[in-house]
């Protein structure tokens, strides 16, 4: 059996993609922190990754199936404390989420790097 790169990488490229897109949405929240009536959004990344994971597992059974696509919906945030101007962004909480998301991105990147160096080691036969 040959080395299949997409099988070796598993869910991590999708996780990376999802974290970039989530950081875009969170950056939008942070940019609109003072816009009246702005509704903060976020991605339900657990369910999105679960969908990708299950379709990746289904794909292992049937040969020649195409790569699953990343599908998610953006949801609106429920604020801890509603503000008078109708804006649902809470600066501190949003900044914490943004920082956490950046750390998750680094984690996914590290996983991918480990997979790649593992494959490179296998190819070199060391």
């Amino acid at each position, binding site marked *: 059996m040959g080395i299949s790169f997409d099988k070796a990488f598993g869910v991590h490229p999708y996780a990376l993609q999802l974290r970039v897109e989530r950081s875009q*949405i969170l950056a*939008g929240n942070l*940019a609109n922190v*003072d*816009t009246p009536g702005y509704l903060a959004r976020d991605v339900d990344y657990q369910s999105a990754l679960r969908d990708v994971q299950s379709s990746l597992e289904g794909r292992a059974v049937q040969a020649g199936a195409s790569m699953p696509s990343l599908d998610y919906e953006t949801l609106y945030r429920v604020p801890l404390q509603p503000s008078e101007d109708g804006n649902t962004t809470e600066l501190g909480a949003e900044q914490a989420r943004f920082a956490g998301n*950046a750390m998750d991105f680094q984690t996914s990147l590290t996983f991918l*790097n480990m997979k790649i160096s593992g494959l490179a080691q296998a190819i070199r036969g060391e």
Partner: protein
Amino acid sequence: MSFNRIYDIAGSAMRAQTVRLDTVASNLANADAVAGSEGAAYRAIKPVFQTVYQRVEDAGGLGAATVDVAGVVQSNRNVERRYEPDNPLADGNGNVFYSNVNTVDEMADMMAASRGFETAVSVMNRIGSMQQGLLRLGQS
């Protein structure tokens, strides 16, 4: 990967907060301005922010949310009339009109605006380091 869109978002936030700081600076500079009539008195100006959603096809429905300054409005709070007959600008009744700027409000606004600006700067820095990490993928 949509990193460029994030730079647009952070850039729009910085631009909007800069406009806000501009209005604060002009309001504070004119806080003690005197005028000879009620109509000519300085009135505080405030920017109005609005969200602009970028193209819809990415990010599942609504796209990237940038911020834009929809316009600058004048405060309709009453200007302050004071009886100062010695003032060279006084009208026939000896009244002058001071601006309606509330300096405490303006200082609070200034702090909020600079905090928003700093947030956008740190978003940019963090996105930059994420992108650099991605560029080095597979090198280690």
